[in-house]
């Protein structure tokens, strides 16, 4: 009898065991997600997360690019960056992490691009603008990749789980990202999905930048003009150096100058901008949580700094003297400061500002016409006037450049580039200018008296890419010098 009861219990357990062994996680499975607008947007938001980390556009990406410039120096493990002899192991790992984080964001974009067509509760308008945002981000990230590594493996929604994808050529990479960005410019709306998500203007600004890198200045001018003519943006007026805080300060919510920013916030925790941590000296007063003073310059020893007009409000806004044992004229950059925070900085990373677009326009219009015109010069002067506290839209003979002084294309382009160097100081943009213009070696030799090795111009394909992606040969397909 007893055995019979046991057999019965056993039989019951066997029949119910399939249920017992079924997994019911308190989590969301991919199969049932990406249907409603809220779900797709959660997927879109995930594109931004990887690149906001300190290891990439949260700090180290900017450090890497800024130290390369003629006006900046790196300290500690970042010191080899301004030896211009290529990357050492530590920095090879750093750029490898940047690569991985960019591609993680690309994967997140690809998932949304793949899932949107099958989303059950999405209307056509939302489908188009969400798709456009995902493709904008994918195109933008490939633009960053191609400028640092040249041609890269093109990961799309089609080949997400394919292991071996070869490096595309630089041209093919540009073509791919142009498709994405053009689609984005056509389908994004003027109104951002959220404060900091891309708009049509964002896509056009990036397109202008891309075309300038491709030396297609007519298209660059047109794209920049589209942004300018949209009348959605304006330069923020400045009358004293500290007024630049209205553009870069940690408390700025939304400024008319914002075309596309990566947004950061002091709260909640872990959502802040880490870059100021690397910029400042502990107890300097510009960033309370501390500081690594990873990059610095020298007001006297650096030639570019000595040439910078001290009446330019941007000089005063950008630099403070901080000695830490090197010289008495060591200066640190304070463009990104948050004097109040106890956790992380509230500043945003201004990837594309209206001032950038204005200067894009000035350069590409002049190049498209093979000579500067009054309009191009006026665009340049608007940014320049502001740096002296003058109203941007009002010509001012005391500070304005005169077209007659810079009538050749070369002279004008050099003037624009120099203006952009001042304007974009510490914004991780100038190195790309030098590379685009082909002036890296000359400028670094002039300003720092260092010969730049060829291998310094591109970053190496990371080890854990070619180790596991058999379509990339570690020797043949590696960037020169690595």
């Amino acid at each position: 009898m007893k055995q019979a009861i046991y057999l019965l219990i056993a039989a019951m357990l066997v029949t119910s065991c399939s249920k017992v062994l079924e997994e019911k996680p308190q989590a969301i499975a991919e199969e049932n997600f990406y249907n409603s607008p809220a779900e797709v947007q959660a997927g879109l938001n995930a594109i931004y997360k990887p690149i906001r980390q300190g290891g990439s556009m949260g700090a180290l990406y900017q450090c890497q690019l800024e130290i390369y410039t003629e006006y900046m120096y790196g300290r500690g493990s970042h010191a080899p960056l301004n030896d211009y002899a290529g990357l050492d192991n530590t920095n090879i790992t750093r750029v490898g992490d940047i690569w991985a984080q960019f591609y993680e964001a690309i994967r997140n974009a690809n998932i949304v691009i793949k899932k949107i067509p099958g989303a059950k509760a999405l209307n056509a308008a939302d489908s188009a603008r969400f798709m456009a945002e995902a493709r904008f981000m994918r195109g933008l990230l490939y633009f960053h990749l191609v400028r640092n590594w040249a041609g890269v493996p093109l990961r799309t929604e089609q080949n997400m789980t394919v292991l071996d994808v070869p490096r595309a050529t630089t041209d093919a990479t540009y073509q791919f990202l142009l498709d994405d960005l053009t689609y984005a410019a056509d389908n994004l709306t003027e109104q951002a999905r959220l404060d900091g998500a891309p708009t049509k203007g964002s896509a056009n600004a990036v397109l202008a930048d891309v075309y300038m890198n491709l030396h297609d200045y007519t298209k660059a001018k047109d794209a920049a003009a589209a942004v300018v003519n949209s009348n959605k943006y304006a330069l923020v007026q400045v009358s004293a150096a500290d007024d630049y805080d209205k553009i870069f300060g940690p408390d700025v919510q939304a400024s008319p100058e914002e075309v596309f920013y990566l947004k950061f916030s002091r709260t909640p925790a872990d959502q802040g901008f880490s870059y100021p941590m690397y910029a400042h000296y502990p107890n300097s007063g510009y960033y309370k949580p501390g500081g690594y003073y990873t990059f610095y310059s020298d007001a006297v020893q650096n030639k570019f700094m000595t040439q910078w007009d001290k009446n330019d409000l941007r000089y005063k806004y950008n630099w403070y003297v901080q000695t830490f044992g090197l010289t008495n004229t060591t200066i640190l950059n304070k463009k990104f400061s948050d004097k109040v925070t106890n956790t992380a900085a509230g500043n945003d990373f201004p990837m594309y500002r209206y001032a950038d677009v204005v200067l894009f326009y000035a350069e590409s219009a002049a190049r498209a016409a093979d000579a500067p015109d009054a309009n191009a010069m006026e665009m340049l002067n608007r940014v320049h006037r502001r740096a002296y506290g003058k109203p941007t839209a009002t010509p001012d003979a005391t500070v304005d450049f005169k077209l007659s002084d810079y009538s050749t294309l070369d002279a004008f382009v050099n003037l624009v580039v120099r203006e952009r160097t001042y304007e974009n100081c510490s914004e991780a943009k100038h190195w790309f200018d030098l590379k685009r213009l082909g002036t890296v070696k000359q400028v670094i030799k002039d300003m720092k008296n260092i010969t730049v090795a060829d291998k310094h111009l591109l970053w190496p394909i990371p080890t854990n890419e070619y180790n596991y992606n058999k379509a990339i040969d570690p020797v043949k397909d590696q960037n020169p010098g690595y």
Partner: protein
Amino acid sequence: MNFKAILRHTDSQPPWIAQTIRVMKIAAIILLTACLQVSANGYSQEITISRNNTSLEKVCRAIEKQSGYVFFFDHHLLDGAPAINIDIKGAPLKEAMDICLKNLPLTYTVVGKNIVIMAKENAADQPEILRQEVSGKVKGEDGGPLPGATVKVKNSTVGTVTQADGSFRLNAPANAVLVISYLGYETLEVTVSNNTPLSIQLKPVVNRSSEVVVIGYGVAKKSDLTGAVSQIRSEDISVQPLTNAMQALAGRAPGVQVMQNNGAPGGKISVRIRGVNSILGSNEPLYVIDGFPFNGSPDFLQPSDIASMEVLKDASSTAIYGSRGANGIVMITTKTGKKKEGTTVDVASSYSIQSVTKKMRLMSPLQYGTLYNEQAKNDNVPLYFTQQQLDEFAKSPGTDWQDLVMHNAPLSNTGVTVSGGGDKTRFSVGAGMYLQDGIVRNSDYKRYSLRGSIEHEISKVFALSYNVALTKIDTRLQNSQLGNRGSDLISAMLMAPPTLSPYLEDGSYRRLTTAYPFISNAIINPMIPIYEVNERLKANRVFSNAALTIKPMEDLSIRISAGINNQDDRRDIYSNIEPSTNSVGKADVNTAQTQSLLNENVINYNKRLGIHAINAMAGFTYQDNVQTVMRGSGIGFLSDVLNTGSLQSAATPGIPNSTYEKWALLSFIGRVNYTLLEKYLFTVSMRRDGSSRYSKDNKWGNFPSAAVAWRMSNEPWIKQSKVISDLKIRSSYGASGSTAINPYQTLNLLTPGMTTFGDAAFITYAPGETLPNTLKWETTYQVDFGVDLGLFRDRFHLTADFYQKRTKNLLNKVQLPSSMGYKNTVRNVGEMQNKGMEFAIDVQAMDNAVKWNIGGNIAFNCNKVLKLYNAQDIYGTNLYTGSLNDYVNLLREGQPFGIFYGYVEKGYSASGNLEYEDLNKDGKISAADKTYIGNPNPDFTYGINSVTTYKGFELTLFIQGSQGNDIFNLNKAATLDLGMGLNLPAEVAENHWTPEHTDAKYPKITRNLAGNMSTRFVENGSYLKLKNIQLAYNLPVERLHTKWFRKAQVYISAQNMITFTKYSWYDPEVNVYGSENSVAQGIDYSTYPVSKSFTVGIRCGF
């Protein structure tokens, strides 16, 4: 002539040894069998014999043939007797013997089936007045009475049996020797001295083959084992103070490697049984506590509560645990009460002082200043220190950061066990308190435990048992976070400049990162984590188990049990408001609650039919485990008083975070043991496991095993041997598994996250870093061949085992190209093999006034990775020191697990820089020049245990060692990381490259060294350690003649006092990246140092 006369006789006459042995032989027979019978009365065997002028011996042999009784006598006695004439018909044995010995000075006694002939005592010589009444009490090992024990006056037929309370009473001559014997106990002789009652305590016989060992879902006699099982008894577990009882496995059981990851109190240890089987899954054995398969390391058990630990190693022993058996099983049995035992109380208490095993010799202030000036000079930068500063450095001893961080720390350990029982109920209650301060200041580990066990026979059919253990662990951690360039406590302790004081003149902490312009921007003031950061881990453990045993009929029992294991952990971390670190107060609270439920239903059938014996077991079990985690944090507090008590008052509250995870395992088990003729043993077992973790069609796995053994010593041709007392050969084969994957790993789950738009937070959902895949069970097949050999009545005992394990369907994290966005995926591809042999020897070397037991064991294991996904190497953790950044350990087909892989240093360049072998001859040093530079796996590990007793003294030595393993001493990376202002070993200052001294240990002092993970860091990690030495004295409490005081022992001991090793850093017992599945084995880097200790203690029984 009596026995004493013989002794006197032999004393004066060589060759006395042979005679002594003869006497001993007779005595032993008497003693061994005396318990059976003390008189020949009642024997009615009829004897018919007729002989004339025949020697007594021949007559005896004739009687022997007829009666079946065996004679024992001293040949001297019988040889001296005259020839006799005898003629009897059908007389009883007693009568026959009386006739035989009539008129001879001989008498006899019948003991069981033996007849012992002895010299007759001359009763007339013994004055009656000297006979007296002797009384006393016979007790067992634990002080409980032994009823039915035999007490006999030596050399006489006078004897009695003890009463239920163990007492006896008899008449004996003065100075008589009483022989006390009891089945299963060693026979004892006691001289009657005066009128006081005797208190006699018997020791149980150590008889190997009758010892019982715990196996999966049952117990077995050692003699019936067909598998490879090692046993560690409670006295070995409690011989030294241990944080974690698992440390007692080190060196005690062959094939069990115990690695202390670091020296932190309560720090993790890794246990490997017969090598490493899994890459992804845990390699820790499964711990089964009183039948409950326990998830994790049983650090909550008070070592003194453990009665025994059995290590199941071969497949026939482990396969019954199926999918969790591949790494071996450690069966832990806690103490229970004994039947019919008086209540006993055992108290043990000890106090230790711990100190670091050694101090590192670092640079003096002058060496520091001079070295960095040399670096500045070599690197063409202005000198850092002026001559005046150097002169000041020369006068100062500098700051000894090691002394500031470490100190001598106390440890106290107290345990009380009360146990007892009656006919139907047994109980045991234990309480323990283990209080340890760490050698690093402000670190400690406190454990308080209460345990109870009760067993009750409700009726002949039903019996109930209940076990519960409550433990509270409270520990303050000083973490070695394996940072770089002094960014964590231990590396800062070693790297902080000796020229700097920890405090500024105003009493505030010195900020080391800005102390010198050239110094590391990562280095912290070591005083900060010690005094300004408080990390506490509080853990409550409730472990309870109840079982109902039903015996509906003889031979059949059904056991229904249920168990709950509940673990509540709470970790609080608070960093004080501290200007020098820009801390504004930071609080973190993590709580984890884990609950595991177990139900087991097992039927056991035991039957002996003539020459057949069968034992069959079958059952089904269910176990699940739910873990919920909740975390909260906040930054920015108004006062340190708030600590972690008010997260809501943080200026910046952190995002709360919670997780949920559950797994379930449903299993059917069965095992049959069959024994033929008590010689041939067969075992077959099977477990079928269903796991929730695997994909839908792969949930179920079968784990069968079979074993055979031959007890050769039960064969007649060995049974007669005087040399071999025990001999068994055995062999087994079977499969066991590993639940290598986490719950939900086969599901495409999305990971939530957060990002901001504007200044508002928004939720993100994206896949994690692992691309999901369908997965199968990982299975380990093991063949084992073993021999158990006992010689000279088990005074010498050897166990040898030879095994080969092969793990198939090895689950593997496969790296993906980073452009995929996923970091890795998990696949079922790979194979690994472990081959090895183990020997354990026990010798009772001396057994006189001085008793000496020595045991040793040695284990050889050879691991080889057979197959990996696409032959793709698996790299260990990337190790980052600030200057070096690379992996060191590697898994590669054809190589042992976790081999060191790096560059071969070949010397210095003409300018004193490091140079490496260009192995692929391509003219440059690249990753292609890496090769195997070391092996963290030992050739063999061993342990030696010696116990010597003389009178009340007992000397215990325990030696443990490892041979042939390498350590990658990454601490030395700092010696190549010059220009960061780090303090370094003094030998860097004393022995580095200069143009005049090119044959130096360290290269040129420059920050431009081409450092790599190289042979430079590989050191011989072999060691021999005197783990424990103890001198104990057993106080002669029996002289107190108090009923309540059973035993008392005082002892002094020392742990880790002597280490023989060539290893240069703190201690060769280190494995900083050790974890249950870490590939990065054998690395030493910036970790909490191991301590040595000196202990005094007392153990009492009442």
